[in-house]
């Protein structure tokens, strides 16, 4: 993966730049020692690494303002960072960039149950937002698998999803307002505790803009009352195709579960070995979860299991206790970690129309054989958001390149069948150069025009999202 050549004039000014940053931030908020900047050299896409020139950890919105004004005046590229869990390289620095991390901005500012909204600083982790309201039986709905570690800032930047977004939507559907610091160092309030801000939906375009339009320091998030109960049912099938057909039938039948998760055999085995979740050893496993009171759960599960039975499942098992339910989800959420125990892997997240599921799974299998690398599948089947995990050996020369080539083919396949390159992880550097398979140059130019308005010098996370060649002149003008 190509990254821009760092600006030698910036590298040469490192001491002066660091001294400048120390003038506007407390000493312990500026990290410049090469041993320490290494902590910021990569995110969840660990195959690519490059320590930044320096990393700063502001504690207030005003400090973010001061830092961005300084960086703008100095012409320094800025790479915003939440917790660094991006799987797409969204927080990967360049050697001439300043990492602006929001880790110290982690307070809850206001909790308002009557109006169903919480105001937090964006360095707060996803799970700890729910943690702040669960005593009142509320929760924050988007639940990416990395929710223990990932920050709200990163969730907003990538418009993160999760297993339960079939019912509750992704970050953008649960984000009511933000405090945004622009590259000019202006503080802009978008939205708030009321719905649907006036004017253009700037909050909508900001969410998912991968840190390229500004740095979000505070967010108002929609919180919801927890359902009375929830219960998953496990369904095992002896073919991926039948499992895919079952998903489509459930959706068509008019009962919308809160989650429909899909795992194939390699993934089931890895998770089972890692977590002992009690998964059956089958070709394809569905975890279907419904919510409500005891009677409501029963009413929904009766309908869903009746549909499943028409597909002759090898196994059909409702969770019998809350412990068992927790274990079932623990297995699913540990899928990436479990695969990581046995192999290096690359995780893709293209989305496809649900109707194309059987065809795409078959085609992935063919591609996997063709490229000689195994692929395990675990994904959000209800909304067609695939997660093929390509297994490779990072120590074997050439394997990463084969893996990336296979990954590109799978993503092109997703686009060909009417889907997209990324459903919830973002483009980052990983899918940057594939953008033209999904969009025309004109389509991309329209997106870049938005960045031109927010950040005319292209200083914010400049080498991400768009093919490097298309952004070259803009970046060079910085």
């Amino acid at each position, binding site marked *: 993966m190509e990254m821009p050549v760092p600006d030698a004039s910036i590298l040469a000014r490192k001491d002066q730049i660091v001294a400048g940053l120390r003038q506007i931030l407390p000493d312990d908020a500026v990290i410049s020692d090469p041993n320490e900047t290494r902590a910021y050299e990569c995110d969840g896409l660990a195959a690519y690494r490059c320590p930044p020139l320096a990393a700063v950890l502001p504690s207030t919105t005003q400090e973010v303002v001061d830092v961005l004004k300084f960086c703008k005046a100095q012409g320094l590229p800025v790479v915003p960072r939440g917790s660094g869990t991006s799987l797409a390289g969204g927080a990967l620095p360049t050697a001439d960039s300043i990492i602006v991390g929001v880790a110290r901005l982690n307070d809850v500012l206001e909790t*308002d*149950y009557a*109006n169903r*909204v919480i105001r937090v600083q964006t360095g707060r982790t996803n799970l700890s937002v729910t943690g702040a309201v669960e005593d009142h*039986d509320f929760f924050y709905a988007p639940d990416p698998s990395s929710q223990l570690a990932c920050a709200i800032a990163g969730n907003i930047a990538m418009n993160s999803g999760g297993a339960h977004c079939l019912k509750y939507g*992704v970050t*953008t*559907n649960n984000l009511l307002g933000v405090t945004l610091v*622009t590259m000019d160092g202006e503080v*802009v309030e*978008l939205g708030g*505790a*009321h*719905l*649907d*801000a*006036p*004017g*253009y*939906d*700037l*909050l*909508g*375009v900001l*969410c998912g*803009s991968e840190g390229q339009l500004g740095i979000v320091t505070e967010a108002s998030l929609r919180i919801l*009352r*927890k*359902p*009375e109960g929830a219960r998953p049912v496990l369904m095992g099938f002896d073919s991926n195709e039948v499992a895919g057909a079952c998903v*489509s039938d459930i*959706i068509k039948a*008019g009962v919308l579960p809160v989650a429909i998760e899909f795992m194939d055999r390699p993934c089931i085995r890895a998770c089972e070995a890692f977590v002992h979740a009690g998964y059956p050893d089958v070709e394809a496993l569905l975890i279907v979860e419904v919510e409500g009171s005891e*009677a*409501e759960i029963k*009413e929904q599960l009766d*309908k869903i299991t009746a549909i499943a039975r028409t597909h002759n499942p090898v196994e059909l098992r409702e969770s019998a206790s809350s412990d068992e339910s927790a274990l079932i989800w623990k297995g699913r959420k540990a899928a990436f970690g479990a695969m990581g125990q046995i192999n290096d892997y690359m995780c893709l997240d293209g*989305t496809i*129309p*649900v109707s194309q599921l059987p065809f795409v799974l078959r085609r992935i299998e063919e591609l996997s054989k063709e490229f000689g690398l195994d692929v395990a599948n675990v994904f959000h089947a209800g*909304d*067609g958001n695939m997660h093929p995990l390509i297994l490779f050996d990072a120590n074997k020369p050439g394997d990463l390149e084969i893996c990336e080539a296979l990954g590109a083919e799978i993503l092109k396949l997703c686009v060909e069948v*009417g*889907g*997209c*390159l*990324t*459903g919830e*992880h973002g483009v980052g550097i990983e899918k940057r150069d594939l953008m033209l398979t*999904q*969009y025309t140059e*004109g*389509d*991309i130019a*329209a997106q870049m*025009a*938005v960045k031109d*308005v927010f950040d005319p010098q292209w200083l914010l996370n400049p080498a991400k*999202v*768009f093919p490097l060649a298309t952004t070259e002149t803009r970046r060079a003008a910085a």
Partner: protein
Amino acid sequence: MTHMPNSSAELAEIIATADGPLRVEGGGTRSGLGNRVEGEVLSVSGLSGISLYEPGALTIVAGAGTPVQVIEDALSSEGQRLPFEPMDHRGLFGTKGVPTIGGVVACAVSGPRRIQAGACRDSLIGVKFVDGKGAQLKNGGRVMKNVTGYDLVKLMCGAYGTLGVLTEVAFKVLPAAEATATVMFDGLTDVQAVEVMSHGLTSPYDVSGAAHLPAGPDGTPVTMIRLEGLTQSVAYRAMSLTEQLARFGQARVETGADACKAIWAGVRDVEGFGGTGGDVWRYSVKPDDGPELGRALARKGAQRHAYDWGGGLVWALLPEGSDGRAALDGLGGHATLIRAEDQTKARFGTFHPEPAPLARISSGLRAKFDPKGLLNPGIMG
């Protein structure tokens, strides 16, 4: 003069060769929204028809000029629906004609279910449009999870055609409810009503509508909470809410499908605000600020006001030429002047004024997407 292209390419050609402002129109039923635009009419009604509908993928794609009714009928035949329940503005504006799906998106029109299922922008998953330079563009697609590049889908929704003319829109749809119940309380004050609605919305019962009419059909206050879903589940939740809210009086529970449909269509279309004189203002506030806004509106001489979204959406009928925005004084949120004479709109501003940094960003975007200022110039102020 009216342009009526039959394809995106024809539409692009019209824009590319236009030398003056274009007034973009679908069915014309919402032409009262925004500021009046002078210019040749560019109608998208020729871009009509459903191009893809996959019930098993909960996805529908249609031309911008497709009548809303055509889409709703297609969905309904498969037991599905548009989640966000778009308002029909014909009653309010006294307009005739056929509302189109492009108009719904351009004006970001949502209804009572917005609080539970999201707004129009939340269901919209893809757009095709022609920008002010005549370029045919797309964003998003036909899958419900998509973070590939910037989300211009959201930007186009509610842009009133000023950043591009929509030619095709794609939605995530949802199963229609098997059963509906409306739990109704009579005679509550605005403050009590918001308390009841807040209780419903913070309960685990998945409330999909919460409205309060200080003057209901018989002139007395009625507070309504809607529950939708499987039959037994709806009955259980209606009973639970009725019990929990008994201190506000004995609730009436309406379970008839047609009756519930009529009740919520009335809320959605602000029945009672149509065919009257006076100006209509629409407010979006923090729900528990609703009653305070209601009091301020009464002081301003409001003849009528109504709450939706648990108190967060307030409609008011004010004497002609009133500064309805001033009623927001000290509260957050924003006010839009929906129906008034042009001079009133010019005097008070149709849309809420944007702070300077936001106004700069908005005009910057307009300059990028429509550098010649051809598309609905001035409609958003």
